[in-house]
């Protein structure tokens, strides 16, 4: 790893456009999703941008393969680690919700069965949330199309991320509880902050400025 270059991991998927927007606005790097998608790793003056899957961003940062990372708070709930969470970048707003079929009788905690079954891509967060409510839960971990699971009778409901609520509506699901609100965050490797603070902090303040954060 170069002494001066600061590496930033950005996530594929929903947050990519926002992340590239903040990078451009901060004056650090002007990149299109297409070129980054082709090359995965692009060097610019002072920074190196790498494209990784959203759930891999904390791994890259915690291991020091990237100094900084842009990642949704939802991923951080699911994979806590040794990184520093520095800035709320204020884009990619969405909510992690408990949704059930429109026809379901489930509503607030008082209507939950003795053991509730939920499907989710967020098993850790879901388990912790139900634990905090004193509710027994059986979490089925799925990797995609979570909305399908309640319709075929696999589970009572799902814990999933929603921005507009459209996908839920299209699948005849309604929100009965909100576990938390998520936005994109800037995270940093602990050693990078300590051993290369000047270079890393300068990039952090540019990104902070570009996000309109405090």
């Amino acid at each position, binding site marked *: 790893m170069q002494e001066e270059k600061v590496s930033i991991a950005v996530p594929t998927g929903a947050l990519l456009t926002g992340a590239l927007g903040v990078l451009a606005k901060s004056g650090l790097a002007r990149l299109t999703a297409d070129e980054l998608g082709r090359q995965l790793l692009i060097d610019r003056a002072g920074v190196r941008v790498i494209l990784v899957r959203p759930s891999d961003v*904390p791994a890259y940062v*915690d291991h*020091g*393969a990237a100094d900084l990372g842009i990642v949704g708070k939802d991923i951080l709930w699911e994979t806590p*680690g*040794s990184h520093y969470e520095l800035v709320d970048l204020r884009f990619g707003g969405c909510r992690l919700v408990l949704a059930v079929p429109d026809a379901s009788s489930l509503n607030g905690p008082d209507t939950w069965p003795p053991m509730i079954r939920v499907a989710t891509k967020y098993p850790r967060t879901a388990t912790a949330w139900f634990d905090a409510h004193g509710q027994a839960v059986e979490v089925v971990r799925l990797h995609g199309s979570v909305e399908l699971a309640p319709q075929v009778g696999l589970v009572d409901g799902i814990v999933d991320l929603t921005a507009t609520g459209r996908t839920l509506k299209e699948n005849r699901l309604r929100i009965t509880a909100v576990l938390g609100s998520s936005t994109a965050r800037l995270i940093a490797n*602990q050693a990078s902050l*300590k*051993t290369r603070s000047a270079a890393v902090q300068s990039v952090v303040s540019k990104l902070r400025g570009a996000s309109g954060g405090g």
Partner: protein
Amino acid sequence: MRPRPGGFFTPANPSVTPQLGGVPGFRDLLPLEAEILREAQESLLAEMRRWGYRHVITPLVENMDVLDVGLGLEQRRRLFKFSDARGDVVALVGERTVPVARLVAGKLRSAALPLRLCYSGPVLSTDEGRFQQRRETYQVGAELIGASGPVADAEVIALAARCMEATGIRRYQIDVGHAEFFHGIMDAVKLPDGVKAAVRAALVARDFVALESLLEGTPLKSAEHELLLRFPALRGGPEILEAAGGLVRNRRSEAALTELAHVRELLVAHGIGDVVVLDLGAIRDFDYYTGVIFEGYGPDFGRPIAQGGRYDALLARFGRPAPATGFMIQLDLVSEMLTRAPRPPALPRIDAALAWSDPGLNTALRLGSTLRLFGMRAVVDTQPRSPAEAKAWWRAIGAANLVHCRSDATVSWTSEGQRSRSLPPEQVAGRLAGGVT
């Protein structure tokens, strides 16, 4: 398992094959890794001995009663626990400072303080280490018990620095902070206890977004608000102490700054001023550390490899109140760093491969003993071989010399890149030991 010609990989059937990979999270160290780890461990313990620290060995298993006294809830939760035959709940140690404290308050209670002790050994954790997946790691540490004040703090920090050098790490940095600086700030701000606890929790989780939104909801004056948000970035050379002095107005924090200034001067006298960075934002276990704290970082490595600080409250909990400071080095991180270096250490070569054919076995055995007496690495073959087979065996084990013993009188000696020579065994031993080829 080797891929078949078709390129398919057939996984072993777990119901009939033992799990050759071992238990998940527990690693085998192969010869090169084991050699690097052992060398690093010996260099660390040797450096500690040069500073007058005595090596102690505490067991891998401790009573939960003892660990309960010294460890926080999180640490206790991550221990492998079981009950022994008498029904006592015991655990595999997750760190080794608490066992050393038990020793000092127990079997060593009549030993005069200060005591300088060091240790080395594995520690275990049920935590699968998030991404690292390692549940057994190795720590080497030193504890200075019974001495308070900057001179003792500086001794332990300088020892940690020299230890990092002793392992062969070329570039490193030691961040030095003070737990009391933060405690002073928290004392001085007027916030309900619940909010203070949440501020501490956010800092321990390194979540500055949460910290910021917590503080936004409080009626704090802007200067205090600003200080709580910005103190984690207060780091640098001695000038940072003056800058910080202008920001805090409480006695605890000011006393911490004075002490840090003193420790820094002593570290300059120790000769390690240029690797020390003052870090007033050092965030560590607030309940455990009571004074100067520090962390050691190697180049381009995502985590600290050494950690330590003053923990004056621990010994009292074992009934022998005494100030104490110490540190531990993550031995596996050190060896990982050495492995990644531009010129990683290599496994030492075998000096002599001793092959034989009847009736040369006794000569080979005698020659092996002689060479080992001179400190050389010599391997005697387990079966007779023809000269051609002996050469193949020699190449396979990668030794520097081949000595083929066919009789008592003369042996055939081949040194790498040279022709074979027939000489009496004593002469071969003499030349090999004398470095003559």
